[in-house]
């Protein structure tokens, strides 16, 4: 028992060390993120000075990457509250080392998400008009209400379980910088761990865990209603609410996996976050991915089967037209491939694949490189693209890419099996990249294909291409999200100390984790 206490103290010391100033890598990352945010602020300054004309947004396509960011961030924010609340209520002990990471994701992404509609407003000085003259019948106002409610709830949900840890920091940093001491003293609420305080804390956590679930579900449902309550091809759907909620949970769970990998590597949290946590989170991502895939299939299959005249332009643009590469990337790269990466390497058959000479990584990589080279050569505009033989090859490109990609996937399976954490991380990054583009594909093609033809507008207004201002602000938002998360981890322990201390040692990451997770 004593040895175990020593082990706990060691890992706690290691965790608390992460609160002190970091090394050169930390400052380099801080600098890059700060520069990206600063560049975004300059971009926003340009937009504020010259108006939304500096963006690709026009009368017809009035939503673009800003609203894509908004839906993406609100979606990612789901997992912290929902996953943490559900796992708390169901008593899943393995969640203890990762719930705070998830809750902090909610906080950081909500802050960034809530900013995006303001950025999308050409006249932010008229913001108060939304409240003063807003109509309760408008989904836009429902959105303001629900996001404000969710931000308040999730901030409380993040803060309340931190109180005992903040009290520990208050005592530990008694000789530290005064601002830190003051911050911890105020936030610790005079916590001394008395029976009465613990009882109140448990009551608050119980209430919040139950309350936050319907709030989180309602927020993304309301976000989906901003689109679904309008009569437009692609948005006029009855399943947009659950479709958005499942997509949000899928991308959010993947974001937690990415955060787990990053903090495990940067702060050396191997004692807290084990391979078993990645496996368990992987199961969650797979399950959510399958649910999301089911809704996605319904969402596209039903209108595609009918191909109604007024939706044909939109559906054709998505399936085989201008947006087809993005759409198929989101389906294959952002959904099928990550789920396959998380499931197939676990099959016993994979061990035998490594012994097949053709399925070694080298030939598969060479074939994929050749296929990609062919795509580059045959691309319209390349010097040899005009040759007749090259033109004849063009229809074969999707098949060549598919075959080479499948070959590479099979060849890399043994590598994935040997490196489950890296594989889970790669899958989670793919999910999030795919999730961002999926929101783009949901928004922009619909706006470019209204039921009433776009008329009396300059030709350029009918299509949307984001400008440097929009990309700068988008990069700044993503960097701002990481920056808030990073600074949070420097102020508060990213793993809950008191919860992992109280948990059975197996469930808190140390010792016989596999046994605990098998229960």
């Amino acid at each position: 028992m004593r040895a175990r206490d020593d082990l706990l103290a060691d890992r706690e010391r290691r965790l608390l060390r992460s609160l002190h100033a970091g090394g050169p890598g930390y400052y380099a990352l801080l600098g890059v993120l700060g520069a990206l945010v600063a560049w975004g602020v300059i971009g926003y300054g340009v937009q504020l000075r010259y108006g939304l004309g500096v963006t690709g947004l026009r009368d017809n396509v009035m939503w673009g990457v800003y609203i894509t960011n908004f839906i993406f961030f609100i979606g990612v924010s789901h997992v912290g509250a929902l996953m943490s609340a559900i796992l708390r209520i169901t008593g899943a002990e393995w969640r203890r080392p990762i719930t705070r990471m998830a809750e902090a994701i909610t906080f950081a992404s909500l802050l960034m998400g809530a900013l995006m509609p303001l950025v999308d407003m050409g006249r932010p000085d008229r913001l108060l008009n939304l409240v003063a003259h807003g109509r309760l019948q408008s989904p836009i106002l429902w959105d303001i209400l629900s996001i404000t409610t969710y931000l308040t709830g999730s901030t409380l949900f993040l803060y309340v379980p931190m109180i005992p840890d903040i009290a520990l920091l208050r005592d530990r940093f008694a000789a530290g910088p005064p601002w830190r001491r003051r911050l911890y003293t105020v936030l610790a609420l005079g916590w001394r761990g008395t029976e009465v305080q613990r009882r109140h804390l448990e009551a608050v956590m119980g209430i919040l865990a139950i309350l936050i679930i319907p709030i989180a579900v309602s927020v993304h449902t309301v976000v989906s209603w901003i689109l679904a309550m309008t009569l437009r091809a692609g948005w006029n759907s009855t399943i947009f609410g659950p479709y958005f909620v499942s997509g949000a949970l899928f991308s959010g769970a993947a974001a937690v996996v990415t955060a787990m990998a990053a903090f495990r590597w940067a702060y050396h949290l191997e004692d807290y976050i084990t391979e078993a946590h990645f496996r368990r989170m992987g199961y969650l991502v797979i399950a959510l991915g399958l649910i999301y895939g089911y809704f996605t299939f319904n969402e596209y299959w039903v209108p595609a089967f009918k191909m109604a005249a007024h939706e044909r332009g939109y559906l054709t643009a998505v399936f085989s037209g201008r947006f087809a590469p993005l759409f198929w990337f989101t389906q294959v790269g952002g959904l099928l491939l990550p789920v396959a990466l998380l499931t197939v390497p676990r099959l016993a058959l994979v061990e035998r694949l490594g012994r097949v000479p053709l399925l070694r990584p080298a030939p598969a990589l060479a074939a994929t490189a050749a296929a990609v080279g062919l795509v580059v050569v045959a691309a319209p505009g390349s010097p040899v693209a005009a040759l007749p033989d090259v033109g004849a090859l063009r229809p074969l490109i999707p098949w060549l890419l598919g075959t080479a990609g499948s070959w590479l996937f099979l060849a890399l399976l043994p590598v994935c099996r040997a490196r489950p954490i890296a594989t889970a991380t790669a899958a989670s990054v793919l999910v999030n990249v795919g999730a961002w583009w999926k929101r783009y594909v949901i928004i922009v093609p619909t706006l470019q294909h209204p039921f009433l033809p776009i008329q009396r507008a300059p030709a350029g207004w009918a299509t949307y291409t984001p400008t440097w201002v929009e990309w700068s602000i988008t990069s700044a938002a993503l960097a701002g999200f990481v920056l808030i998360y990073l600074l949070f981890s420097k102020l508060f322990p990213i793993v809950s100390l008191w919860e992992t201390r109280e948990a059975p040692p197996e469930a808190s990451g140390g010792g016989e984790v596999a046994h605990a997770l098998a229960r």
Partner: protein
Amino acid sequence: MRWPGSAALLAALALTASAASAAARLHLVLAPEEGGGLQVVAVVTDAPGSPREGIPVTFRARTAFGWLPLGEGVTDASGRAVLPLPAGAPYPEIEAQTADDPPARAVLALDRRAAAQPAVRPGRRTLHALSPQPGLISPYPVPPLALLGVLVGAIWATYGYIVFLLTRIAAGR
């Protein structure tokens, strides 16, 4: 907002403008459209006053942020190019310009009263008769909104209770 339909009012509102260049004369008229709306008619003539056919004309509207292109047309045999005005378009001025060299330009000042918003909101009964949309699609609060108010109010009341419990933690009792 609806455009006035009566001929008398239209006559009162209609203003004309013209401009001349060495090559062409451009004349703008506000005229009624068959469906009850309005249209801007650009009439292009040469110096003696004969209509010119096939002259491209660009129409723009003055807005708070500059001249907004509204559309383009080509004059017919009578020298007319027509721009139907969107219903309720709140433009104080419409400009037309020919693609001639040198171009002719004319500006038509619309009566500001035509673009003004109604001073009094129509009542619930009037609006219901105009737009019998059921449910929440209404400019007035409808009963189902009470449910929304109760739900959101209950959540915020619970937040209040949580803050109360936090003060109890701070007080240590």
